C-alpha cells in the first residue's frame, strides 16, 4: 500500500521525517519496502519557481495551429507570455505555472525562456503528469479560482512529497488504511492522532431504501445511502493527486470518492447507478445455481451457490466484496447514486476471488478481515465528499446488521510480558504503550481492545506481542540456558554425511534434482492430481530420471569428467495416508559399467560392507551390464536414455547400511605373516568371477583370508570361448605361521575344486 506523507500528516501530527517514520514502522509495525521521493526536485529555490497563474488572454499562436499564445498573471507587474499546447482552459482560468529555471521531474535540464515558432515563451503551464501529480496529459491542471496569482504553487498542491510503500502483515488489515498507519505513527512516534471527522450530511427528502441481507454471516453489515442530483464529472486536482500518489487512477468524482475513502478507512465502498437497479432495492444473498454476472471488467462470471451477491431484488448487480456489475456502473449520465458501505466476511471472499482468479483492491482488504465498525465513518466521509464534490443530496440512509462485534477484554500480567520478552519493561511503560495503541487498561490490568484490532488481539500473548513489538529494538541478545541437552547427529545422519564425503572423494559432484518428475517407472508412484506442469507431476520413486538429466545438462555444456551423485529421498507408495520416504544414494558417471562398479565397490569398502553383486536385467540398463546388490542396482545406462557410455547406480541407504556392524573387532594380521599365491586358470567364457571366488573360498577354508580376481586375459593361447583368470590368494592363520606345505596343500585343494566344479585348467 502507498502512503503519501502529505496525506498522512493530515491525520497525525508529528515532526518525524519520512525516514524516521519508516524506521520505526518497519521495526514495530509493518514492512516498509521503500520511501519514494515524488514531485519536483526540492533543491535550491526550485520550489519558488512554481507559482499560481491566472490566464489573462489566450489566443491562437500566429505561426502554429495547435498552440495557444497566453498572457498569464504570475504576480508580477507585467504578465508572462507562455506558449501552451493545451486547449482545456480559457481566459480567467487559474493554472499552475513553472517559471524559467524550474526543474521538473524527468526533464533533463531547467525550463528555458525560448522562442516557440517565433514567439517567446517564458515558462510552462503545467499538466499534472509534468510534476508527478497524475498520469493525465490531455490538458493542463485547472486550480480553484480563489488562489492568488503569484502565490507559491506548493501551498495549493503537494509539489514535493514522499510516499511510504508499505506491506502490512496479514493479521493487520487495520493497517491497510491511512487512518491505521496514522494510528501506528502516533503510537510509535508520540504524535497526535487526528482522524477525519467530517460533518455527516443530513438526510433530506423522503426516498426509501429497502436493504435486505439474507446472509448476515457473509455480510455482517450493510450501510446503503441514496444520493440525488449527482453531477458526475472529473475530480478536483487535490483528489486526483492524492489518488495518483496512492497508486490509483482517477476515473470520475463519484468513483474517486469511493476509492479515496477506501484508502482512508480501509473499508471498501461501491457506488451503483441507482436508476439502473431494476428492483430499486438491495438484496444480499448467495448466488443461485447457473446464475451469471457481467462484472465491471467486462467478463461474464459463472456463479456458484457459495458466491455472495449484491442483487437489486431481480438480478445480480455486484459480486459482493470483489467487483461491481457492468450494468449498474456509474457513468457520466448518472444522477442518482446508491452508495454501499458494507462489511464482508473474509473466507467467502477469498474462496470466490481465488476460484474466479480475480483480485481487486477491495477483495484484498476484505479477505484479511475488515472491522465492521469502519463502514460507518467511511459512509460519513464518502457522503460528505459526494455532497461537496458532486452537488448531491443524501435522500435515504439505512444500516443493516445483526449486532456489531464488541470489544474483547483481555487480562495482562505485566510481569509475564517482561519475563517472556526477556527485558524488564516497567509497568508504567507497558500501560503507556497499550494506551497509545488505543487499548484501554484498567487498574486490574483488564485490557479492552478496540474493534479494529478485535480479530488480532484476543489473548494475553497478543498483548505481550503489542508490548514486544514496540520495545523490539531494545530486546537484548541472550542464549537459552540449555540445561540437560547435548547436541549430536544420529548414527544415520553421520553415515549420510560420510556417504556424501566418500562420493565427493571419488570425484562425484553432488546434484540436487527435483522430487517431482514428469513420470516414474513405478505405476503406483504418487501423482499430483493438479500438477503445476507436466515436468513436475509425479513424486519420484527413483533418482534415475534426475541424474540422467543432470548428466545431459553437463554433456550439453561441454563439461568433462562428468560424475554426479545425489543423496535424497524417494517416495514409495504405502498403505497409509503418507508414502514411505526413503533415502537413496544414486550416481551417474562417464565410463560405462566400470566407472560405477568401481564407485559402488568403494562405497561398500568405505563402510566395511560385504558387496554381493548378481547379474540382472533392468529396462534402463544395458542388458549385458546390469547388476543388483542387496541395496540396489548398478550397471551401464541403456544407450537409449543417454548417448555415450554411462554407468549409473542407485542404492537404498537403509538397506546399504543394514549389515553395518555396531563395532569392528580387531583381527591380528600382523604377528604371523601372510602367504601370497597367484594362480592363473583357464575357464569357459561364461564362468563369472563371483563363481570362481566362491568356489575358491569354499575350498580354501578358514586360512584363505583373501581371494580376488586381478586379471582376465583372452587370447590364442587360451583358446576360443575361454578366458584366463588370474587369482590372488592370501593364506594366513591368526595363531601361527603357515608352513609352505600347508599352503601348497590348500592351494591344490582350491585348484582341484575349481577344476571339478568349473572345468578350470591350471595355467600357472
Amino acid at each position: 500500500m502507498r502512503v503519501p506523507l502529505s496525506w498522512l500528516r493530515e491525520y497525525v501530527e508529528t515532526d518525524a521525517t519520512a525516514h524516521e517514520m519508516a524506521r520505526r514502522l518497519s521495526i514495530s509495525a509493518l514492512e516498509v519496502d521503500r520511501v519514494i521521493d515524488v514531485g519536483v526536485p526540492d533543491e535550491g529555490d526550485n520550489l519558488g519557481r512554481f507559482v499560481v497563474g491566472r490566464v489573462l488572454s489566450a489566443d491562437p499562436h500566429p505561426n502554429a495551429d495547435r498552440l495557444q499564445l497566453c498572457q498569464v498573471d504570475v504576480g508580477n507587474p507585467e504578465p508572462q507570455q507562455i506558449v501552451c499546447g493545451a486547449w482545456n482552459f480559457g481566459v480567467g482560468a487559474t493554472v499552475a505555472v513553472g517559471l524559467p529555471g524550474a526543474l521538473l521531474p524527468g526533464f533533463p535540464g531547467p525550463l528555458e525562456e525560448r522562442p516557440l515558432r517565433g514567439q517567446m515563451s517564458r515558462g510552462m503551464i503545467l499538466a499534472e503528469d509534468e510534476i508527478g501529480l497524475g498520469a493525465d496529459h490531455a490538458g493542463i491542471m485547472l486550480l480553484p479560482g480563489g488562489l492568488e496569482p503569484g502565490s507559491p504553487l506548493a501551498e495549493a498542491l503537494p509539489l514535493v512529497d514522499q510516499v511510504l510503500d508499505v506491506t502490512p502483515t496479514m493479521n493487520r488489515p487495520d493497517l491497510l488504511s491511512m487512518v491505521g498507519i496514522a494510528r501506528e505513527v502516533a503510537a510509535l512516534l508520540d504524535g497526535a492522532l487526528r482522524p477525519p471527522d467530517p460533518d455527516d450530511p443530513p438526510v433530506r427528502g423522503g426516498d426509501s431504501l429497502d436493504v435486505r441481507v439474507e446472509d448476515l454471516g457473509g455480510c455482517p453489515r450493510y450501510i446503503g445511502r441514496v444520493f440525488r442530483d449527482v453531477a458526475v464529472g472529473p475530480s478536483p486536482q487535490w483528489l486526483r493527486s492524492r489518488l495518483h500518489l496512492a497508486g490509483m487512477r482517477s476515473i470520475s468524482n463519484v468513483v474517486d470518492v469511493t476509492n479515496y475513502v477506501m484508502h482512508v478507512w480501509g473499508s471498501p465502498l461501491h457506488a451503483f447507478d441507482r436508476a439502473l437497479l431494476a428492483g430499486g432495492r438491495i438484496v444480499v444473498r448467495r448466488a443461485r445455481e447457473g446464475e451469471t454476472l457481467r462484472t465491471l471488467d467486462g467478463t461474464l462470471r459463472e456463479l456458484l451457490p457459495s458466491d455472495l451477491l449484491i442483487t437489486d431484488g431481480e438480478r445480480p448487480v455486484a459480486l459482493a466484496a470483489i467487483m461491481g456489475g457492468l450494468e449498474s456502473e456509474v457513468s457520466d449520465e448518472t444522477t442518482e447514486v446508491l452508495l454501499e458501505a458494507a462489511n464482508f466476511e473474509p473466507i467467502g471472499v477469498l474462496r470466490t476471488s481465488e476460484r474466479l482468479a480475480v483480485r481487486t483492491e477491495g477483495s484484498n482488504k476484505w479477505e484479511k478481515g475488515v472491522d465492521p465498525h469502519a463502514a460507518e465513518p467511511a459512509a460519513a466521509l464518502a457522503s460528505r465528499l459526494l455532497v461537496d464534490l458532486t452537488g448531491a443530496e443524501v435522500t435515504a440512509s439505512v444500516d443493516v446488521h445483526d449486532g456489531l462485534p464488541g470489544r474483547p477484554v483481555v487480562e495482562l500480567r505485566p510481569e509475564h510480558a517482561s519475563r517472556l520478552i526477556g527485558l524488564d519493561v516497567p509497568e508504567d511503560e507497558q500501560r503507556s504503550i497499550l494506551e497509545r495503541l488505543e487499548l484501554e487498561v484498567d487498574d486490574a490490568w483488564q485490557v479492552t481492545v478496540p474493534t479494529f484490532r478485535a480479530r488480532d488481539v484476543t489473548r494475553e500473548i497478543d498483548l505481550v506481542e503489542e508490548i514486544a513489538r514496540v520495545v523490539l529494538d531494545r530486546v537484548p541478545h541472550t542464549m537459552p540456558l540449555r540445561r540437560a541437552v547435548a547436541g549430536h547427529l544420529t548414527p544415520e545422519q553421520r553415515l549420510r554425511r560420510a556417504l556424501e564425503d566418500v562420493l565427493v572423494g571419488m570425484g562425484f559432484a553432488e546434484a540436487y534434482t527435483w522430487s517431482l518428475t514428469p513420470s516414474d517407472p513405478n505405476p503406483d508412484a504418487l501423482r499430483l492430481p493438479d500438477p503445476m506442469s507436466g515436468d513436475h507431476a509425479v513424486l519420484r520413486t527413483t533418482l534415475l530420471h534426475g541424474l540422467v538429466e543432470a548428466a545431459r545438462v553437463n554433456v550439453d555444456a561441454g563439461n568433462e569428467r562428468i560424475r554426479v551423485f545425489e543423496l535424497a529421498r524417494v517416495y514409495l507408495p504405502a498403505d497409509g495416508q503418507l508414502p514411505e520416504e526413503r533415502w537413496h544414494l544414486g550416481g551417474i558417471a562417464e565410463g560405462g559399467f566400470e566407472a560405477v562398479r568401481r564407485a559402488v565397490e568403494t562405497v561398500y569398502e568405505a563402510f566395511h560392507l560385504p558387496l554381493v553383486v548378481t547379474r540382472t536385467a533392468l529396462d534402463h540398463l544395458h542388458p549385458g551390464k546390469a547388476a543388483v546388490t542387496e541395496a540396489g542396482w548398478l550397471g551401464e545406462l541403456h544407450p537409449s536414455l543417454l548417448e555415450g557410455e554411462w554407468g549409473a547406480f542407485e542404492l537404498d541407504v537403509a538397506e546399504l547400511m543394514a549389515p553395518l556392524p555396531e563395532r569392528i573387532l580387531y583381527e591380528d594380521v600382523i604377528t604371523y605373516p601372510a602367504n601370497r599365491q597367484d594362480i592363473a586358470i583357464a575357464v569357459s567364457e561364461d564362468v563369472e568371477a563371483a563363481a570362481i571366488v566362491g568356489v575358491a573360498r569354499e575350498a580354501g577354508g578358514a586360512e584363505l583370508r583373501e581371494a580376488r580376481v586381478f586379471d582376465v586375459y583372452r587370447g590364442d593361447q587360451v583358446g576360443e570361448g575361454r578366458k584366463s583368470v588370474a587369482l590372488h590368494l592370501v593364506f594366513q592363520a591368526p595363531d601361527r605361521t603357515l608352513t609352505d606345505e600347508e599352503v601348497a596343500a590348500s592351494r591344490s585343494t582350491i585348484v582341484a575344486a575349481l577344476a571339478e566344479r568349473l572345468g578350470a585348467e591350471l595355467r600357472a
Partner: protein
Amino acid sequence: MDVEALEQAALAAVAAARSTDAIEAVRVEYLGRKSALKLALREVRDRETGMTLNAARERVESAVAAREAELQRAELDRRLSEERVDVTLPLGGYPRGRLHLITQIRREVEDVFLGLGYRVVDGREVETTHYNFDGLNFPPGHPARSRLHSLFIDDDTLLRTETSPSQIRTMEAEQPPIYIVSLGRVYRRDTPDATHTPVFHQVEGLAVDEGITLADLTGTLDFLLKALFGQGRRTQFRTHYFPFTEPSIEAYVSCHVCDGAGCPVCRHSGWIEVGGAGMVDPKLFEFVGYDAERYSGFAFGWGLERIAMLRHEFPDLRELWRNDLRFSRQF
C-alpha cells in the same frame, strides 16, 4: 718394503680418485685381498712391523672411506641437480567432487546448532494437512491452504510448505527440554524463475524449555547470522506475523556487501531480510499437551537458498537445480 711410500702412494691415489668407481679401484688396489698391504700383513711375523702395517692400513681405509663418502655425496648432489622439474607445472589433482552448495550451507547451519546443544531431526516431506496447517494454527482462510499456493496430493495430504511440521511431530513425541533443528526440502506452487523454485530448502529451529525468552531468540539468531555472514555484521529484528508464533519477528542482517552503506544487494536499505522467527504460539503447546504456563519456546524457519544467494551473489536460483559442474565446482 717401504710402508711409508706405499701409504703415500695410496693416499695420493685416494686424493686423485674422481668417482666412486675410481675410489673402488683404489680400494681394491691398496686394500684388496691381493694388495701389497694385505699380502704383507698376512706374512708379517714380528709385532712391530705388524703394528706399523696395521696403522698404515687403518689410515688408508679411513681415507678411502672419507673420500668415498665425499664422492657419493657429490654424485648424489649432481644427480639430484639434474633431476630438477618445473614445480610450477600443474599435473592435475586427484579427481575430487563437490558437495552441493546447499549441502555445504546445511552442514554449516547444523554444525552451529550442534555446537549449541541442538539435535538434528529429519522431518517428512509429504505431510498431512493436520501437521502442515491445523497443528500450526493456520487459520481456515490462510492462502497457504489453497491449491493455488501449495501442492496437494489429496484433500488431506500435501507436500509440506515449510519445515515447521517437524515442530509438532517432535513436541508430540517428546517432552521439554527440546532443542532441535530440522533441515530439508519444502514445496510451493511457484513456477520456476530466477528467484523461485517449486522445491527449496529450509532450516527449522525449535527450542522449548522453562524460561525461554524473546531475547534468547534474538540472541540465538544473532549468533547464527554472524556465523553465516561474518562476525562484523549487525543484526536487526522487526515485527512480523506467522500463525504459529506470537510474537513473530523477521531477522535482518547488515549488508555484507556494503556494510550498511546501501548497494543493489540490499536494495539500498543497508539491511538484508533473512527469515522469520517468533515465540511458539501457546496454541501449539495446547495442541501437543504442553503446559504453556510452565514452558515457553521459540522457533524459526529460514530458506537455505536465500542464504546461499545472498552470500555468493549468484543471480538465478535455478542454477542450484541444473547441476552444471561449471556452477557446482565453484563452491
